[in-house]
């Protein structure tokens, strides 16, 4: 059975590629977080029925029924 090494040769060989992928993923997470904050702050994603009475939205439902 081969000995388990803490740092395999492949880690050294692929370090720059793994670093690039890691930084790209981090940037992606930051961007999606930023986008989410912008959309939530503007209230776009909150326009749904929930447990709080929303008279404005109830009116829309009544209009749709007519």
């Amino acid at each position: 059975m081969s000995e388990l090494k803490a740092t395999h040769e492949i880690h050294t060989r692929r370090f720059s590629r793994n670093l690039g992928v890691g930084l790209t993923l981090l940037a992606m997470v930051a961007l999606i977080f930023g986008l989410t904050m912008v959309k939530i702050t503007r209230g776009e994603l909150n326009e749904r029925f929930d447990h709080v009475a929303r008279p404005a939205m109830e009116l829309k439902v009544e209009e749709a029924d007519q």
Partner: protein
Amino acid sequence: MSDAALNATRPYEPTFGDYVALLKPRVMSLVVFTALVGLLVAPVSLHPVETFAAILFIALGAGASGALNMWYDADIDAVMKRTAARPVPSGRVEPGEALAIGVGLSGLSVVMLGLATNLAAAALLAFTIFFYAVIYTMWLKRWTPQNIVIGGAAGAFPPMVGWVAATGSVSLEACLMFALIFLWTPPHFWALCLFMKSDYDNAGVPMLTVTHGRKSTRRHILAYTLILAPAPIWLALTSVGGPVTLITAIGLNAWFVKRAVDIWRRDEEQAQHDSYAVEKKFFRFSLYYLFLHFVALIADAVIRGLL
């Protein structure tokens, strides 16, 4: 993962930069610029984070279609001097990896653009990727000498996608920005073909220079330049235009038509005598031509913002 798998080495270990090169960064920079202009001159403005995300995902979509192009065209890229050093034909990246990256990033960019802006922009980006990867790369490029005329549409979509990302719909202004790039592509590319003669001949790609001859290509360059000229002038007269765009359009098009006439008047003997100096100058100028038109649109948008 077994040790055997870990130790299995490829003749060349691709770097992160090799995968980035698959996305054609130089083409992406043009896409970023034109899409940004389309987005900034639109009457509706997005939040800066949404603008950044929209441009990033449009560029990523363009990069994905570039990777699909490199996957499919590896055989002809290998025989052309200009493209032989690309990651797939040079063996730095496996064809399957290029395909996976192309398909994966296509899906990611379309979905994320839809979430960041609107569904119309996402659909238009998906169509752009399909147009470049399938209609142009897989179908037109090896079939007809008009490949670059119709395929040029793929490069013309980014400002329209940028506009739709901001407004949610297509308008005359977006169509004219599309027309500017669409009609600019043939004379720009055919000028390149005139002085990169051996490349397309060797690859067997039916470029106009190969199928119809170089004299006919010179006539086509002039014809398309004359058809192109009214588009930016019309654009200057719309809501996104203004005095800067109008003056720029008149000046650049007068110069562009003059150069196209010069190319049309020359024959191969004259061109070879000065190593295609006029054709090379026309090609270089065509890059500035497109860049300056879009800079002018931004300048007029800034002026409108100040007034």
